[in-house]
């Protein structure tokens, strides 16, 4: 079995992003970049399937500018066998990313594609589902457990009220939720080895893809500020404030 793991380069999850003062976009100057946390969980799951003897090859892929090579190298250090960058300097919406991944799918013919459920920059939560629809494949989104067996994969999904389990024909698309696994750290020897693993670059323009954005960002503004609150000294004072000032309890 071959597994494809698409990953995204995003601002590190610890960085608090603010809107630029002219509201032209988020202020990303000098922000630390990292692999999207949900993509890291996807990579870990693929590597575990390989370690369990259920997969032979894990291929990491990213759609973005040349800097995304850094995140692909991280994937190689975490256990991917090789990596593919679909290079573009455009900012690509999930629809465009899914179109690029569809091209990679047709070249690679993987049995399973594991992606993060959402990227923590745009918070769109679309790419996996869109790719599944374009390929007419089954999808198991928000996965907390994955079991591959006899040409099918059983996925337990985190849904609003609890858990749902579905069975999907392969090839299938899985998007990861938080509790699927705890990603490992790359060891120093593996980081060194990753430098020698193959990383192929495809130019988005040469693939003949229409990646033009369909949405214009008119402005990016800060969220409404909350008025400063107060510290209370005791439970008595808290209950009094909630009853008589905020009037939210009776």
């Amino acid at each position, binding site marked *: 079995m071959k597994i494809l793991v698409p990953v995204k380069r995003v601002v590190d999850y610890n960085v608090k992003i603010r809107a630029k003062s002219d509201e032209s976009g988020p202020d990303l100057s000098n922000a630390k970049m990292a692999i999207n946390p949900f993509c890291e969980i996807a990579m870990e799951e693929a590597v575990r399937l390989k370690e369990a003897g259920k997969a032979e090859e894990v291929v990491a892929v990213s759609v973005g500018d040349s800097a995304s090579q850094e995140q692909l190298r991280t994937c190689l250090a975490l256990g991917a066998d090789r990596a593919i960058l679909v290079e573009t300097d455009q900012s690509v919406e999930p629809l465009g990313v899914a179109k690029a991944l569809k091209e990679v799918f047709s070249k690679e013919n993987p049995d399973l594609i594991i992606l993060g459920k959402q990227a*923590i920059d745009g918070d769109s939560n679309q790419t996996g589902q869109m790719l*599944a629809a374009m390929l007419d494949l089954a999808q198991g*989104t*928000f996965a907390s457990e994955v079991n591959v067996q006899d040409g099918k994969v059983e996925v337990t999904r985190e849904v609003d009220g*609890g858990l749902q389990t579905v069975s999907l024909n392969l090839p299938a698309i899985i998007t990861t939720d938080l509790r699927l696994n705890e990603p490992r750290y790359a060891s120093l020897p593996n980081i060194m080895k990753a430098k020698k693993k193959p990383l192929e670059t495809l130019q988005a323009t040469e693939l003949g893809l229409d990646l033009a954005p369909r949405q214009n960002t*008119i402005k990016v503004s800060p969220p409404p500020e909350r008025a400063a609150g107060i510290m209370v000294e005791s439970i008595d004072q808290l209950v009094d404030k909630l009853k008589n000032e905020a009037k*939210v309890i009776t």
Partner: protein
Amino acid sequence: MSILVISEHDNNELKGATLNTVAAATAIGGEIDILVAGSDCGNVAEAASQIPGINSVLVADKEAYKNCLAENIGNLVTELADNYTHILAAATTNGKNFMPRIAAKLDVSQISDISAVISEDTFERPIYAGNCIATVQSTDSKKVITVRTTGFDACESSGGSASINSVDNDNDAGISSFIKEEIAESDRPELTAADVVISGGRGMQNGDNFSLLNGIADKLGAAIGASRAAVDSGFVPNDMQVGQTGKIVAPDLYIAVGISGAIQHLAGMKDSKVIVAINKDEEAPIFQVADYGLAADLFDALPELEAKL
């Protein structure tokens, strides 16, 4: 304009998230149809027809739609899409699951999680865990939109009498099947619909200590939530998680107990009307968004709060 709202339901009951989604559709303006796709879902269609201002309720009552499998619902809605300029669903785990499939089939760039409607093609949506609000204009001829329910006050649920029309499209893609569901049974209100929410974080120390929240939740009619740290530590299940990647809540009163206030948690609750924080660390960032902060040991504060409510 003509808008299709895909309803949220469990084949028996129309869920409140549908009312928030209809409110967003009303803000866009135009004729609104509601789709009820399910199996044995006549009660839901009946309830949907009572919503005032609805043109028509479409019912696709087939075994293939029973469990809301994205492959089947996606194909159904794609077939119905010709008649509509806008297709809306709540940004619940169902809506998030099937809507991008519809968008991709229609070659449309989906607008996820809108929190406000500016015009028929322009919307606000939070990005970067809600630290920025983007105003985006869609250039697609059709708009595929998921709605952040906390951004729109629910519309009325009775007084209307829309016609109910059945839709015959039967789409079993045959590539996925439902196996089972484990839905937590609770007498408490749903987290995303509750007027009061009390949430615990890493400071609760273990899952057993979450029982300290029960008595207070009982007295306030509150739902119980948790931070990602509490979920990651295995104290409570993930369906209790409030935050960027969990549930988004905006109750009248939100009580955060033993929660430090990571940006990912704040993203899920900072639109609450009144926020109370109880934390023994006076420097905890949660106090910066709290209307009322109490620096105290939660193991002393919770029993006292329960007694005094």
